[in-house]
């Protein structure tokens, strides 16, 4: 299966570390993360609202979260987290697929949703990806998830496949 990508590369994205202020005046630090940050990321997923899950992730059982984190914090992945006083409140990840392209996913804790942190996380992760020379990033999103689709479109993702339950989008860096 070959995935389509936009012909034109996207512009430069900001790189971590960054400090941003969300639309509710909360200061959030966006930092690169890896397996050393496992515990704080794990804590975030323990308090993740199961109703906010999408396409089966994040898992809800603790052991399943552990297995999943092994994959998404593993070798050749790229991660950024959004840190607030209370801990990690958002996380974005890029995981290599079998074709050497990268799949993106992002999660923001419910009290911090709708305030622009998701956009900052995605842009900063793409900035980190540019600094590592990644070129092709894709994602899928449930077609009824309008806020997420709007976010990805604003960042520069283009829809490449819209005929199934999930919309596929991609960006060239």
């Amino acid at each position, binding site marked *: *299966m070959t995935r389509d990508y936009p012909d034109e590369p996207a512009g430069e994205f900001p790189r971590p570390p960054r400090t941003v202020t969300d639309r509710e005046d909360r200061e959030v630090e966006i930092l690169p993360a890896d397996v050393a940050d496992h515990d704080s990321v794990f804590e975030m997923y323990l308090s993740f609202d199961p109703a906010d899950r*999408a*396409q*089966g*992730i994040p*898992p809800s059982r603790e052991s399943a979260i552990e297995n*999943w984190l092994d*994959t*998404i914090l593993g070798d050749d992945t790229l991660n950024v987290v959004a840190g607030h006083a209370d801990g990690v409140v958002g996380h974005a*990840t890029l*995981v*290599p*697929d*079998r074709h050497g392209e990268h*799949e993106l*996913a992002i999660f923001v804790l419910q009290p911090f949703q709708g305030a622009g942190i998701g956009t900052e996380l995605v842009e900063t992760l793409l900035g980190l990806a540019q600094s590592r020379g990644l070129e092709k990033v894709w994602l*899928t999103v449930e077609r009824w998830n309008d806020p997420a689709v709007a976010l990805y479109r604003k960042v520069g993702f283009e829809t490449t496949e819209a*005929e*199934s*339950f*999930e919309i596929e989008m991609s960006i060239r860096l």
Partner: protein
Amino acid sequence: MDILLGVGGSELSYHALEETVDRARATGDDLAVAIFGNEEVNADADDIQGRVEETLAESDFDATIRRLEGDSPGSELISLAETEGFDRIVLGGGERSTLGKIQLGSVVEFVLLNSQTPVTLIR
């Protein structure tokens, strides 16, 4: 019950075959396996049928084998279930990406949305 299981050559479809055979053995249901080639997994229908027959032989379980020959296996599976009065369609599906996101393939999606016969999806 008369069960119609669709197998299109994905690993999840073979997993569904094993689960369905176990369950049919426990319940005494009659099983028909509909084989179809599938663009999404690039599998040849003869190879798929060979693997299905092997699994049935190993499990010592009798099932009827059917072939869906056209270009739209989802639609043909539904027609077969309706015209021959099957009680339930069973499919395997919900592949996970490396990142862990579940996606349904086009055949599963078509059957879920269009079938009047109850559908069981085995993930």
